[in-house]
């Protein structure tokens, strides 16, 4: 079945621009939309905690923000709570890959499915490739419950 979540060019641009702003670090954020509707309309950039985690515990978190992201859970909760109170819900999680392609890495996949299945099965993952500071490609990876795997669609 074709992916029917609507992502407007405005929403896509907001994500791409966020990826460019954070370059050479990975940007990350959430996109929400009305519950029961297949539209992603509100983009919320979220702080990438990866450098702080790496400084605090480099053994446990060997990567820095140039190759990894870890959303600030406090900001995530604020967005989730606000969204829910207004009849909205999470539709997309996005992050950028500085100087790397728009693919869903093994790491992305493993963390999205900590117990073999996705934590947010209805939420798509957008990955943005930012080459030398310019967002050049973006893809969405979304869960197919029948195939038990992620499928992709090209956004840019």
């Amino acid at each position: 079945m074709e992916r029917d979540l609507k992502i407007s060019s405005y929403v896509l641009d907001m994500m791409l621009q966020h990826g460019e702003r954070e370059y050479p670090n990975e940007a990350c954020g959430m996109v929400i939309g009305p519950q029961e509707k297949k539209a992603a309309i509100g983009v919320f950039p979220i702080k990438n905690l990866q450098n702080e985690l790496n400084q605090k515990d480099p053994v446990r978190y060997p990567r820095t923000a140039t190759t990894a992201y870890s959303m600030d859970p406090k900001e995530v909760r604020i967005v989730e709570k606000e969204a829910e109170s207004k009849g909205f819900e999470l539709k997309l999680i996005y992050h950028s890959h500085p100087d790397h392609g728009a693919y869903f890495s093994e790491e992305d996949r493993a963390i999205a499915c900590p117990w073999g299945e996705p934590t947010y099965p209805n939420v798509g993952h957008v990955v943005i490739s930012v080459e030398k500071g310019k967002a050049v490609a973006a893809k969405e990876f979304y869960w197919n419950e029948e195939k038990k795997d992620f499928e992709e669609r090209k956004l840019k």
Partner: protein
Amino acid sequence: MAIKIRIPTPLQKLANNQAEVEVTGKDVKTALAALEEKCPGIRDRLYDDKGTLRRFINFYVNDEDIRFMKGEETPLKDGDELSVVPAIAGGR
């Protein structure tokens, strides 16, 4: 000390489909051990094979991230809420 543990949706099947489980414990470690008593099998989902808390599962005591407190030794008091939340994270 009564502690409320908030269970994420994918693990609720191990917890009688409950979103919250009440246990007693003086710190995160003992509360999670008590959780395993009530919800057998859940420990393996929270700890890796080295016996440390999984890297991409976050734990909060009343909204405070235990990574920035005392980790598993973070003390708990009566009425505290311990939330188990998968991290939203990744990397190329």
